[in-house]
């Protein structure tokens, strides 16, 4: 085992855990607490790139729980809703396993301190069939407090780079401090990946100092996806991208106004347009907006003029709890929320396993195709419309499964050679290079925007453009190897760009492969503009083969469920 303490000015720090959780976000926090509740003596480490108090996509807060079974709803009705939204392609086993526990997990986090609005009778306030209203501004600190109280060890400001793999099994992760010259060798009996989805792949809506105003956290850069891809884990459904319908400029949420206050989508003539397109699900609401714009009837808006003065004030408070800059926008424009309709727009595309279903191919216990590795939350695939509560359930499921797995396992040795190899790959950028991370990031985003269905091409895809994207990404690889970093902050950014690059490579493979249009806007093949259930009612999965530097595509039938034998 490596006993090195110092290499090239870096401290080499060893950490051992029974279970290592990568990512202290929604799923990761729940996984951590679940393990400690079941086995208080279990040595659990959560390793987080930022600080768990405000890391991940919930940093600013959230206004509603959008996956909850209100009275009259059942796990089966939830599944039907998810299947309809995903045009028939979902892993029913995963979605049902989530649906069965959504309400329990909500009560659990309420008990931890999450404020949930109730009526006079003490019942949760519904918003439609599957949502409840919460004051989600403190959601992240509430989760973080529960983690700390449980006795889990949290290591903040550490960025994970690659899994440690021995004999085809994940037995830890390599990582580095985002602030100091410390390289980590973290060994564990089992690893749960909970790193969330990937943002920043495509050119965003706004330029300059507003470029990080996005739907998802710009600091969720696909590390877990990239590590899994590099390790040869099977991934699913990257082609089902997610594009959010948001308020223009601020990219603030629209759900609160639309579902919470009933604001209708109207075009510039004041016409409600959704019914023209039979638009009843999330992708179609975006598609309809795009079509109205292209037909010259845009811009499109959420009609907030019908809100009462009291509702307008309520709306402002709702935005303060999840996207405060919306309130600034109204102030800057001298407007009250109900004075003028609010313009809406599509965001740039993201790869996520929460709203859509891109991520690790997992079994019902959230085991990935690599032994010793579980995935939970937005990084896990096959179960769209997960939202916050679905991520909590997956965190819990993965935690219990990992706990069962480690019963007869031990922490294993890491060879010095393996450590030095990863150390060299990770730190080389500090020793010189030519390109800044910012240049690579914008170069990548331009390729994806122009050739892989970004905002600039109204999300449309075709074979010829995707082949150009593929070619340009291969060429970008040379530049990736010439990135430079002045300090540990820039080194973190360099690896974020590298991880995004890997996600983009996998994404192009998936976008090329599915030759139909199943999810308009999210995945619109202009050269195959219709849905083809006879041929394409299958999962498109992929595995990267490092020895050949290529991706192999695997089609999986809808009912396929991973089975692992007892020796797994």
């Amino acid at each position, binding site marked *: 085992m490596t006993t090195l303490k110092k290499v090239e000015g870096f401290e080499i720090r060893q950490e051992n855990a029974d279970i290592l959780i990568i990512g202290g976000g929604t799923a990761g926090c729940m996984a951590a607490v679940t393990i400690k509740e079941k086995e208080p003596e279990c040595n659990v480490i959560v390793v987080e790139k930022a600080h768990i108090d405000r890391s991940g996509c919930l940093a600013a807060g959230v206004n509603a729980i959008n996956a909850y079974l209100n009275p009259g709803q059942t796990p089966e009705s939830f599944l039907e809703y998810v299947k309809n939204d995903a045009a028939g392609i979902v892993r029913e086993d995963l979605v049902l396993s989530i649906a069965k526990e959504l309400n329990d997990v909500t009560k659990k986090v309420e008990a931890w301190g999450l404020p949930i609005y109730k009526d006079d009778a003490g019942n949760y306030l519904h918003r439609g069939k599957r949502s409840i209203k919460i004051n989600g501004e403190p959601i992240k600190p509430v989760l973080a407090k529960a983690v700390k109280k449980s006795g889990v060890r949290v290591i903040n400001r550490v960025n994970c780079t690659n899994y440690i793999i021995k004999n085809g099994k994940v037995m830890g992760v390599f990582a580095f401090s985002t602030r100091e010259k410390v390289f980590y060798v973290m060994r564990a009996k089992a690893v749960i990946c909970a790193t969330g989805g990937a943002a920043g792949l495509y050119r965003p809506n706004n330029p300059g100092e507003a*470029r*990080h105003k996005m739907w998802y956290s710009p600091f969720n850069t696909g590390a877990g996806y990239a590590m899994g891809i590099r390790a040869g884990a099977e991934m699913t459904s990257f082609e089902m991208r997610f594009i959010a319908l948001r308020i223009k400029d601020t990219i603030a949420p629209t759900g609160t106004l639309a579902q919470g206050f009933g604001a209708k989508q109207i075009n510039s003539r004041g016409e409600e347009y959704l019914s023209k397109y039979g638009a009843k699900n999330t992708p179609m609401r975006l598609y309809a907006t795009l079509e109205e714009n292209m037909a010259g009837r845009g811009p499109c808006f959420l009609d907030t003029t019908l809100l009462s003065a009291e509702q307008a004030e309520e709306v402002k408070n709702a935005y303060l709890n999840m996207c405060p800059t919306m309130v600034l926008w109204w102030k800057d424009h001298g407007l009250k929320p109900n004075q003028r309709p609010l313009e809406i727009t599509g965001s740039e595309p993201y790869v996520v396993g929460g709203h859509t279903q891109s991520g690790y191919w997992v079994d019902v216990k959230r085991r990935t195709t690599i032994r010793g590795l579980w995935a939970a939350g937005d990084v896990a695939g096959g179960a769209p419309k997960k939202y916050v509560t679905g991520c909590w359930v997956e965190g819990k499921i993965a935690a219990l499964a990992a706990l069962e797995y480690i019963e007869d396992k031990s922490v294993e040795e890491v060879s010095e050679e393996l450590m030095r190899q990863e150390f060299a790959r990770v730190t080389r950028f500090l020793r010189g290079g030519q390109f800044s991370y910012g240049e690579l990031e914008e170069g990548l985003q331009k390729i994806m925007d122009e050739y892989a269905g970004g905002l600039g091409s109204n999300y449309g895809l075709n074979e010829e453009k995707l082949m150009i994207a593929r070619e340009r990404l291969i060429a970008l690889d040379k530049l990736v190897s010439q990135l430079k970093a002045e300090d540990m902050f820039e080194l973190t950014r360099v690896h974020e760009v590298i991880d995004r690059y890997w996600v983009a490579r996998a994404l192009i493979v998936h976008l090329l492969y599915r030759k139909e249009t199943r999810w308009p806007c999210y995945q619109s093949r202009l050269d195959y503009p219709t849905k083809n259930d006879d041929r394409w009612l299958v999962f498109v999965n992929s595995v990267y083969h490092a020895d050949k530097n290529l991706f192999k595509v695997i089609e999986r039938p809808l009912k396929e469920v991973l089975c692992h034998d007892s020796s797994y």
Partner: protein
Amino acid sequence: MTVVIDSGKCNSCGGAREPLCLRICPGDLFHKQSDGRVALRKKEECWDCAACVKECRQQALSLMLPVEAGGQGAKLCAEKKDLRLFWKIE
């Protein structure tokens, strides 16, 4: 301009090793300069989550909407009192 530091109010958390804004920012965008004062190193990378604004005990941090997103100078500040958050906009 996204997060603005009022240098008259900021005391770098009394010279703490890790001022609260440094501790909390999900993008790790704050740093201590050579004179010990806190600054934003990459304001264009700010996500506007306002985590730092809520955390600052001096109310030295304000959120502004970038001009590129329609901002015109309004500022939002927050103060935590007895576990409640009070916003102030100007």
